[in-house]
């Protein structure tokens, strides 16, 4: 079985290499994320959003540096850190200088280490790691390095926003924490414990547990415990199939309070929650879609839907990533010297079409931006997800959230 899997992986790999050895002049961006397996939908939607953002924001406006286009290449890492390192090497060998990845902090931790090592050993082919969704705080704290930039708010910052919202709601007395058993799930639980303790010491954490990631077939036993704990709110960092499975199961088994979470929209999840999740599922994130914050945002969304009728713009930070990279390359005047590009990215203040600013904090390469609490609903939705009538609407905004959050990062610059 193992050997057969390997055989399959090798043949798939050789196909990828064969398919993408063309076009030399474009600025290549390697997208290393799961494009097969249980998290394939999350990864594929991310890839589409990157391809669209590169095309719409850069290539259709004449490219960067007077006519050079962006080209996004998809690499399937099967959500495995080991596979990601292989794909990273393949990407570097193909002349890629910019790596984007987001799904799983486990992968991001492996990649950021590998990129750091690679850049130290090969000053001629250095790469930048643009992290658009892996939110383990360690990536911009203990494990930070000069080559890594994070465009998403990290788990602690998001939890800061979530707990702001919970702290305002005096009817919440009990909170249940549940998450996937890996670095990110643990970070979410730790942050929730910390912030709730600070902001509302009267709230009891009635449950705090982890389940295996991507392996649970039926969440019923977990939701039984949650319902029995008589909790007023559930906080989870789950994503992909784990989010939908957990959420649906909790609601099905009689829970009616809010579920605060990070990733419960798009990729089929919104449509699958449908009516059952209305008023229950609440998300924290950047980038307001409903109501649309600007005409540009509405135009962007409409153009995206024209190209991908089945897709969603559920990760607006992807367009920020492409936009900021393009601006940094213009400012640096080169796409080959990634040190110059990184220096231009540091401290950049970027006006995003999704409202507000994105500031790349120089000391830890963490983006600071507005965070919102969204609600899953079918009321007041201009841009629904998954071709359903449901979408997410802003119910609370925290401007430049956690802008002064502490960091332990001691960055070594080249």
């Amino acid at each position, binding site marked *: 079985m193992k050997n*057969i899997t390997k055989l399959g992986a090798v043949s798939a790999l050789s196909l990828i290499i064969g398919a993408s050895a063309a076009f030399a002049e474009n600025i290549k961006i390697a997208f290393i994320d799961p494009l097969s397996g*249980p998290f394939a*939908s999350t990864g594929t939607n991310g890839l589409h959003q990157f391809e669209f953002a590169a095309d719409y924001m850069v290539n259709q406006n004449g490219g960067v540096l007077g006519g050079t286009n962006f080209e996004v290449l998809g690499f399937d890492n099967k959500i495995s850190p080991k596979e990601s390192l292989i794909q990273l090497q393949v990407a570097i060998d193909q002349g890629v200088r910019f790596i984007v990845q987001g799904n799983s902090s486990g992968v991001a931790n492996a990649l950021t280490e590998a990129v750091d090592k690679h850049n130290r050993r090969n000053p001629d082919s250095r790469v930048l790691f643009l992290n658009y969704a892996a939110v383990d705080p360690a990536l911009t704290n203990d494990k930070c390095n000069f080559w890594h930039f994070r465009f998403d708010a990290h788990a602690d910052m998001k939890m800061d926003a979530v707990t702001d919202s919970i702290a305002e709601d005096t009817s919440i007395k009990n909170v249940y924490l549940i998450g996937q058993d890996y670095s990110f799930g643990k970070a979410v639980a730790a942050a929730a414990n910390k912030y709730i303790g600070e902001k509302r010491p009267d709230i009891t954490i009635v449950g705090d547990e982890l389940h295996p990631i991507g392996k649970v*077939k*039926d969440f019923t*036993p977990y939701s*039984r415990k949650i319902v029995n704990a008589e909790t007023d709110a559930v906080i989870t960092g789950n994503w992909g*199939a784990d989010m939908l499975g957990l959420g649906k199961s909790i609601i*099905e088994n009689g829970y009616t309070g809010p579920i605060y979470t990070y990733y419960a929209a798009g990729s089929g999840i919104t449509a699958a929650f449908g009516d059952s999740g209305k008023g229950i599922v609440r998300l924290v994130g950047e980038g307001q879609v409903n109501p649309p914050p600007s005409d540009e945002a509405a135009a962007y969304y409409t153009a995206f839907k024209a190209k991908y009728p089945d897709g969603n713009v559920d990760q607006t930070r992807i367009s920020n990533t492409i936009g900021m990279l393009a601006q940094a390359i213009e400012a640096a005047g080169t796409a080959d010297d990634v040190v110059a590009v990184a220096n231009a990215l540091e401290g950049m203040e970027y006006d995003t079409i999704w409202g507000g600013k994105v500031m790349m904090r120089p000391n830890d390469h963490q983006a600071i931006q507005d965070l919102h609490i969204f609600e899953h609903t079918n009321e007041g939705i201009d841009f629904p997800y*998954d071709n359903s009538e449901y979408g997410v609407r802003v119910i609370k905004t925290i401007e430049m959230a956690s802008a002064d959050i502490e960091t332990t990062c001691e960055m070594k610059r080249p």
Partner: protein
Amino acid sequence: MDLILVNLIDGLVTGLLLFMLSAGLTLIFSMMGVLNFAHASFYMLGAYFAYSISLALGFWMGLLIAPLIVGVAGAMVERYGLRRVHQYGHVPELIFTFGLALLIEELVQFIWGKNQMPYDVPDILNFTAFAISGNSIPAYKIFMIFISVAIFIGLLYVLTKTRVGMIIQAALSYPRTVEALGHNVPLIFMGVFGVGTALAGVAGVIAGPVLGTFPGMAFVLGSIVFVTIVIGGLGSLWGALVASLLIGWITTFAKSYNIEMENVLNAIGIATPENMDENMFRDFWSLTSPQIADILPYILMVLILIFRPAGLFGKRTQ
């Protein structure tokens, strides 16, 4: 104590669902002597077909038609695929089914995309059947239990009480003798393969709305089905039933109760080390049962293979 009853019901649902998959797989194994790697893929096909049919004709027609389509597809695979590969031995058969599993997954992604499908419980079953001290038992779960129990009884009746069943059983053990008596053994094989995959299809139809209909659904369930039939004993229907229920209950209870490894180790007389931070077994000591619930069936399988290699109900061959 009410929670125990609730967990028994939940475990029963999980176990019976697993049984519908493993019943077909174990029959196919005892027939052809080959593990059908693509079995869980037929389960996935069942869910997707039923979803598409339910859009046009409603859930119930999906429940009726989708397993038939899956069964016919399975029979075709046997007739035009496996039967040809059969003459080259078991390894090519194994590789054939493995390739088929990959092919079906790609095909599903190609046709339906990679997103979750909004395949939902039908409205008529979307209510709470009853509640045990605040734990609601959805009517759909009761429905799942009835369907799977009905299928088990039907299967058992056909296999043990009817003439067809007798010929099947005979063909499983002595195909050449049965053939010499004038029965069409290849047809029987094709029929059993078709029925086995149709069962997997039924499982997919009724599991799709609760466990999610997405391209990874076969992968998530695939390995545990093999574990089930190994524990139950390859080729034994009763074994498949007992092993499925056992796995259903073990995983459900392990997830429902936070049993900590520290307490277990203390109970068998191993004291907690004083300085946990520097202990090399720190992670092991801090394990809880929900974290390892999904590995427990695999541990059980290893134990069974060591102490009773033929499985719980298996007859030792050779």
